[in-house]
């Protein structure tokens, strides 16, 4: 496996009322190209801060230390990129877990010993506190661009869409901006994307305004816009949490299909360990801004190393587990 990006000792703090509130503390992890990685945690775990940091969306006042290093060759892989047919190398993943569990600095992974030495970019993206300024300073170097290299899907699709613009135009704008497509071709691309996200009657949907669509349909539109430019990384931050169970399952299945078809890497952020387990190949468990453990989905679910992961699994209320509590007889 080749890393799409390597996060090294990333710490983020927010300033509020003169106090620094840590949101992420010393997080190191690799996101493999083509994998589906879930980040799970409860409120305040730092999972959304991690997503924002990767996407370069942290507020300017955030204090950031550490590096996020992208593989340029992976980002520039053509659209015809096919996902690796082999599962992630589990022995490598175990090595990572070991080094994280003891809280030591990230181990130097021997990825370079494989045939593709050039995959790891020499162009580290040094994160500065002032995100926007930092991006400008780094212009000569390679900086992944949100929308083109990274697609981002948030929890609330209504907040991501312009309420007074037809959805077809909103998607066409992405195609125009990042793929440099002219008007008619951008609109044709938007229509193809609406078909790909399986909106009923894509022609009518092109002209629809967000308020005319259901929550699940709006999230499909947001996903269409997020993948319009063919990003290598798709980040879904609680993208199904506001949807009912049935629509959630449909959106998860849509994300799974699109990620496979386009060979994208998926970062799936969720509070729901069971949902993460259905979609992801690996799961990283966060709590209080720290990465507690990282492993294959089977390892995390069947053999968690951390007591907190066990507590999360125990707190899951499934349909096939034994009775978790005694319900008293009524009346």
């Amino acid at each position: 496996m080749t890393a799409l990006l390597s996060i090294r000792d990333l710490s983020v703090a927010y300033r509020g009322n003169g106090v620094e509130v840590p949101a992420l503390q010393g997080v190191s992890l690799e996101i493999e190209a083509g994998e589906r990685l879930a980040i799970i945690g409860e409120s305040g775990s730092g999972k959304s801060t991690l997503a924002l940091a990767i996407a370069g969306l942290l507020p300017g006042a955030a204090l950031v230390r550490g590096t996020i290093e992208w593989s340029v060759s992976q980002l520039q892989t053509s659209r015809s990129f096919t996902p690796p047919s082999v599962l992630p190398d589990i022995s490598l993943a175990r090595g990572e877990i070991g080094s994280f569990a003891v809280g030591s600095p990230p181990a130097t992974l021997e990825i370079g010993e494989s045939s593709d030495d050039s995959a790891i970019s020499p162009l580290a993206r040094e994160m500065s506190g002032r995100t926007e300024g930092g991006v400008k300073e780094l212009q000569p170097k390679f900086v992944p661009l949100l929308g083109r290299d990274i697609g981002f899907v948030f929890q609330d699709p209504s907040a991501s869409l312009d309420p007074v613009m037809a959805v077809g135009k909103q998607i066409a704008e992405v195609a125009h901006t990042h793929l440099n497509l002219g008007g008619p071709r951008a609109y044709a691309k938007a229509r193809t994307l609406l078909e790909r996200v399986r909106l009923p009657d894509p022609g009518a949907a092109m002209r629809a305004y967000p308020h005319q669509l259901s929550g699940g349909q709006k999230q499909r539109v947001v996903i269409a816009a997020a993948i319009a430019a063919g990003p290598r990384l798709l980040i879904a931050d609680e993208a199904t949490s506001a949807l009912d169970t049935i629509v959630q399952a449909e959106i998860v299945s849509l994300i799974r299909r699109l990620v496979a078809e386009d060979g994208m890497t998926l970062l799936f952020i969720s509070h729901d360990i069971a949902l993460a387990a259905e979609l992801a190949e690996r799961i990283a468990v966060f709590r209080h801004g720290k990465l507690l453990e990282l492993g294959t989905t089977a390892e995390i679910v069947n053999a968690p190393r951390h007591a907190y992961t066990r507590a999360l699994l125990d707190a899951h209320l499934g349909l096939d587990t034994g009775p978790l509590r005694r319900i008293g007889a009524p009346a």
Partner: protein
Amino acid sequence: MSTPLLAVSGLTKRYRRGGKAVSAVNDVSFAIEPGETLALAGPSGSGKSTIARLVLRLIEPDAGTIQFEGGDFRSLGGAALRAKRARLQMVFQDPLAAFNPRATVARVLDDPLRIHDLASRTERPRRIAALLERVGLASDLAPRAIHEISGGQRQRVAIARAIATNPSLIVLDEAVSALDVSVRGQILDLLLDLQATERIAYLFISHDLGVVRAIAHRLAILDAGRIDESGDARAVIAAPQSAIGKALVAATPRLDRNTAL
């Protein structure tokens, strides 16, 4: 069988949308016994929250009857309705939206005691402390503002407020849906404990069948304003008969589907 605590029959509520009538709730009937939990589950727009609001008489139905504690709840008005409302309480998903965010915890709990004349002014601080203790909160939380405390603490305050008037039925509308899973388990335990000791019945509205299975005796599954099937909660979830019941069960995330070692 004794008279049910709550008996709803033929409940119907129509809205006008784009010039045509849409039935949000269509001829819905169910009953809840004292100390029993009935869950209503269904997809978005299936009418479950509308039913909650109809039962609470926050909105009025177009048709149907609501019998509560042996009387016609829909015919009540004025002082009689206010008195009966003490027996029928509610907890919503987002207590921050339900409470004045600038109010203190003490104020939120003082209101029902004062409005329903349940305790004298001098007695109320002691009652508030007892209510906080009953829901597992420290009494020194009383002077804190509602917006300062955690989501789990706020939902405990919402439950304390609901039980302040000694209700026989509490309508819980997605009351644990926004909570972290560890907190959710504690709140469900608290609800089960209150039910066991106070014999409170719950109308428990949720889209999450895992939660329903953990707390409800019976389950009614709704789709498009109608009850498509109902029965023992675990039996319905184990072998759903309706199309929507099957879809809900199939869509519920499972830990074991993708994790065989």
